[in-house]
Structures are given as C-alpha cells and as structure tokens.
C-alpha cells in the first residue's frame, strides 16, 4: 500500500496560509511585544493580513486559477471564491469591532484577565493595571482560517478538522466578556458541550459514510452512490448524522438551543463575528456536502431538510416575537434566517442560461445581504450604553432616534433588510431564495416562508417603532465610538442599501461562477 505525498498548490492556498501565518505571528506578538504596543500591532497585523489575503484571492480569480488542491482534499471553485471573499471581508469588518477602546473608556469589550475569578482581587488588579486580552485577534484569525478551509473542503476529514479549527477558538472567545462575566462563562460552557456533541455526531456520520463509500472524498462518495457494498442503510444513517452536525453549526431547529444563550453571553463583537462568518462557512459546507457528495441522493434528503426549514423558520420567528432583549432577538432572527437559507438549499435548482439564478447564487446573495446588515446591527449594539455597559433591552433602546438619528437610521435600515423590505439587500435576497425554491418544485415551502417572513417583519418593526416613537430612557447614551466601530457600521449600512438598489452585479457574478467543481 502506497501513500503518495500530497501536491501543494501554494498560490491557490495563499489566502488561507496568509491568515494562518498571521494567527501564528499574533501568538508571537503576545510573547515578544511589550503590553502597551500589543493592541496596535495585533490590529495592524490583522488588517494587513486580511487585505493581503483578499488581494491574492482577487489576483487568483482574475488569473482564473481553480481546481482541486492538496490531493483533492480542498477545491478552489466559484463557490469557494465567493465564500472566501465574503469571509475575509466580513472577518475584517467584525474583527475591527474587537479593537474598539473608546466606547469602554479605554478598555476593549474583553475581560482584563479571563482566567481571574469574577469579583476577585486579581480581577480588579488586572483591570486597574489596564491589562487586556489581545489574544482575541490570533484566536479569531485561527477561527477564520478554519472557516476558509471548511467552505472549500472537498473531503469529509478535511471538513471535520476545519470545523474544529473554526469552533475551538470561538468557544474561548465567547468566555471572555468584560462585563457580565458569569453569563459569558456559562455561554462558553454551553457552546462547548453542545458544540463538541454535534461534532461527535458529525464524525460518526463521517465514519458511516466512509464505510459506505470507502473514501472520504466528495467525488468518490458521489460516484459510489447507487453501487453500495454494504447497503443503503449505512448511507442514510450517515447522512442523518452529518446533517445533525452541520445543521447545529448554522443554528437550525431543533439544534438551535445554543444560539440565543451564546449570542447573549458572548461579547458583542464576538457575537457579530459568529453570527456572520460561522453561518457563512457552515452554510457553504452544508451546500457542498449535500450537493456535491450527496447530490445523487437528494430525493432522500430534500424532504428532511424541507421539514427542518419549516421548523426553523416557524420557531425562529415565533419565539423572536416574544423577545425583549436585542441580542436575543438578533439570535432568533439569525435562526429564522437559517431557515430561509435552507429553503433555497432544498430547492437545489441549477441556474439556467436565461439568467435565472441557481440555488447557490441566491444563497450567497442572501448570506452577503444578511452579513452586512448583521455587521451594522452588532456595531450598533456595542454603541448603545448606560453606566453598566451595553444596553440590551429593547425598552432601553426606545427614543434612540432623538438621541442619535444617524445610529437609529442605520439600525432601522438593517432591520428593514432583515425583514425583507424592498430597496434593501434583504428583499432581493429573500426574492432570490424563494424563486430558487419555487423552481426546484417546492412551492408549498415558499408559501410557508412568505408567511414566516411577514410575521418576522412584525419583530423588526417593533424595534424600529421603539426607536423612533418611544420616549428616551434616562441614563441611556449613544457612546462616542472610534473608527473601529464606525467603519463596520457605515460599511454595513451602505452595502445593505447598495445591494438593494443595485443587486445585479453580485447576483450575476454569483450565477456566473456558482457551479461546483466536482
């Protein structure tokens, strides 16, 4: 038995390698650079590396480099290009929020010393000495590199390792909030235990599918379907386990219980990072596993995913109606968005020459529109404050438009986009997703989705009405933010509007390159 050494496509892999190298350099900075200069060097390194990775990615795209990488364990195709570009942009925007110090009177949103017991002497000593955890940048970069690999994985083992590289730093990041530290630690524990459970399910699914196909590669799995050695039961069970692991990561019902708790407990910048980047990478992995590896078996998984899509939309929307906490509301909103995305996944429609977009193109557009609105809304969440820190109750947000009309308008724009109101990116995203499902023959699912999005609109309008027509609450202020918060806020709002007014470019691009390389 021979094991051939893998080939290494350095140039194609460069975006991932740059992010990974920057993460390792970030660890070196922690050891070598004096405390006073760490934040500035970490932020500089992060921005430079992500922009460089994006530049290399664009260069690769212009030179039309594509194909399988590292002995077919990864693949660089149109969807991978789209996912990488989006992950790098959203990663950069949400990591800028990590660096905000002006809002917290000179301290970041992260604990001065995460290892110190809350309320202890060592905690207050660390706070007085103005220590801060600049390790959050390398942690987030490690997580981002895992996401990049996850979105481009072409075999199940790579997908599993990437899933863990993506998740493990996130568990730690969620435990590091400066305020409400008990909640933060509890969120991390829940996230970790449930996350580890779901990856164990994912791994067992991998083992069963490997038994069925005799290989981890997506292409080998696809060709083995229909010619089983041990019977179809192995494939169907394995597929179910894989689905559990993946659907957990995108926060689909009934695997959604961690989402609201972790969103509330984690520091808001980290929540923003998770809400966009984790979801993006996980959805791309779902699509790749189900379309490329299990595409021939889609009559078996379509009804299952359709049922989960209905549950996810309905539960996400109905529970969101009852929320009084803005972060919890955004959590249930992100659950219901996962449901809308699954609607398009179920449709599994391929693009036509007449310019009708495929399921994949509509999913990418939806995620990009959702991502920009999410960046803007989490930047806003970090800015609304009182003496005890961020104000999360929606009643605390009432009358915000009188204190700061600009911020209230940005939040309103993001909410309108979440609700799918015309002239915002969210509307085009919903439209594209619903047509993809419709043309895939799932008109009943589209009907359910439309009802769900109407109910969801109520939730978002509740926030808008509170901000514009409520009485201002005493003590709640809009903090003076530095560019680290204002840039994501403005970029998110501008892009949301742009995608609503001129959706053609991104949709055409996504349709043009949106085919998987098998």
């Amino acid at each position, binding site marked *: *038995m021979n*094991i051939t050494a893998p080939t290494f496509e350095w140039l194609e892999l460069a975006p991932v390698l740059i992010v990974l190298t920057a993460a390792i350099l970030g660890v070196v900075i922690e050891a070598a650079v004096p405390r006073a200069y760490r934040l500035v060097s970490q932020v500089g390194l992060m921005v430079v590396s992500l922009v460089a990775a994006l530049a290399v990615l664009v260069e690769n795209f212009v030179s039309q480099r594509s194909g399988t990488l590292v002995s077919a364990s990864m693949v660089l195709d149109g969807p991978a290009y789209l996912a990488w570009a989006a992950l790098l942009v959203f990663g950069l925007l949400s990591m800028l929020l990590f660096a905000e110090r002006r809002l917290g009177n000179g301290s970041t949103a992260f604990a001065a010393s*995460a*290892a110190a*017991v*809350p309320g202890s002497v060592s905690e207050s000593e660390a706070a007085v000495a103005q220590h801060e955890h600049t390790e959050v940048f390398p942690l987030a970069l490690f997580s981002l590199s895992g996401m990049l690999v996850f979105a481009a994985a072409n075999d199940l*083992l790579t997908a*599993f*390792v990437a899933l*863990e590289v993506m998740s*493990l730093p996130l*568990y*730690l990041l969620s*435990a590091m909030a400066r305020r409400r*530290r*008990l*909640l933060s*630690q*509890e*969120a*991390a*524990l*829940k996230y*970790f*235990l449930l996350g*580890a*459970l779901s990856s*164990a*399910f994912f*791994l*067992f699914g*991998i*083992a*069963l599918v*490997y*038994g069925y196909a*005799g*290989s*981890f590669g997506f292409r080998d799995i696809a060709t083995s379907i229909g010619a089983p050695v*041990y019977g179809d039961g192995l494939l169907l069970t394995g597929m179910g386990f894989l689905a559990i692991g993946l659907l957990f990561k995108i926060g689909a019902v009934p695997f959604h*219980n961690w989402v*609201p*708790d972790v969103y*509330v*407990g984690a520091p808001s910048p980290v929540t923003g990072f998770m809400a966009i980047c984790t979801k993006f990478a996980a959805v791309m992995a779902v699509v790749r596993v189900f379309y490329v590896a299990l595409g021939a078996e889609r009559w078996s998984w379509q009804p299952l995913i359709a049922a989960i899509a209905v549950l996810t939309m309905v539960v996400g929307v109905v529970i969101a109606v009852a929320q009084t906490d803005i972060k919890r509301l955004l959590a249930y909103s992100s659950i219901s968005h996962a449901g809308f995305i699954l609607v398009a996944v179920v449709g599994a429609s391929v693009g036509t020459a007449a310019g009708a977009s495929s399921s994949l193109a509509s999913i990418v557009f939806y995620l990009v529109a959702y991502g920009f609105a999410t960046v803007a809304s989490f930047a806003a969440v970090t800015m609304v404050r009182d003496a005890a820190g961020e104000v999360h109750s929606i009643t605390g947000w009432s009358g915000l438009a009188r204190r700061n009309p600009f911020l209230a308008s940005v939040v309103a724009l993001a909410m309108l986009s979440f609700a799918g109101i015309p002239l915002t990116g969210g509307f085009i995203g919903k439209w594209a997703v619903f047509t993809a499902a419709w043309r895939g023959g799932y008109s009943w699912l589209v009907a359910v989705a439309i009802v769900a999005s109407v109910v969801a609109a109520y939730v978002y309008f509740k926030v808008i009405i509170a901000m514009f027509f409520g009485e201002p609450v005493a003590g709640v202020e809009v903090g003076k933010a530095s560019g680290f918060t204002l840039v994501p806020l403005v970029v998110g709002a501008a892009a949301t509007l742009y995608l609503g007014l001129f959706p053609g470019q991104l949709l055409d691009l996504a349709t043009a390159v949106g085919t998987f390389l098998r």
Partner: protein
Amino acid sequence: MSPDNYLYLAAALFAIGTAGVMLRRNALVAFMSVELMLNAANLAMVAFASARGNLDGQVATFFVMVVAAAEVVVGLSIIITIYRTRRSTSVDAANLLKL
C-alpha cells in the same frame, strides 16, 4: 472481514456516550462521554478501513485523536474557569441564561 460486529460495538459506545452527555449533570463526565463518542467513530473507521482494505480510515483516526486532544485543552480550560467561579461543575448550576 465483515465489519458488522465492530460496527455494533461502535454504535453501542456511541449510544452510551450520547446518553452520558444528555443525562449526566457533571460537565466533566459529559465531556468524557463526548470523548467516548469520538472514539466510537474511530473504531467504526478502523473497522471499515480494514474491511475496505484502504488506509484512509486508519489515517483519519490520527487526525481525530489530535483534534480530540485540542478539544480537551479548550474544554478543560472552560470547565476549570467555571469551577473556580462557582465551585461546581454541574451543568444544572449554570442556569443564568434562560430560553
């Protein structure tokens, strides 16, 4: 070689692990149960690798072991932090976040 019996054993271990995570209240025991589930998957992969006559499954177990070790580092650090805060590792005591 038929992998059937190994597969039954793997499924039994996996079921025990799942039950452990769901039912036990101690975070450490729940975490040990997750490790049991990962090793059940390892056993299934080795059995299939042997039955199929290729090395992929055996190589995969090494990756899984490394990932599991990394998971232990992260998991124990979180559990120990919680323990130092609350003097308890019971997942029932962690109830500040409501549905």
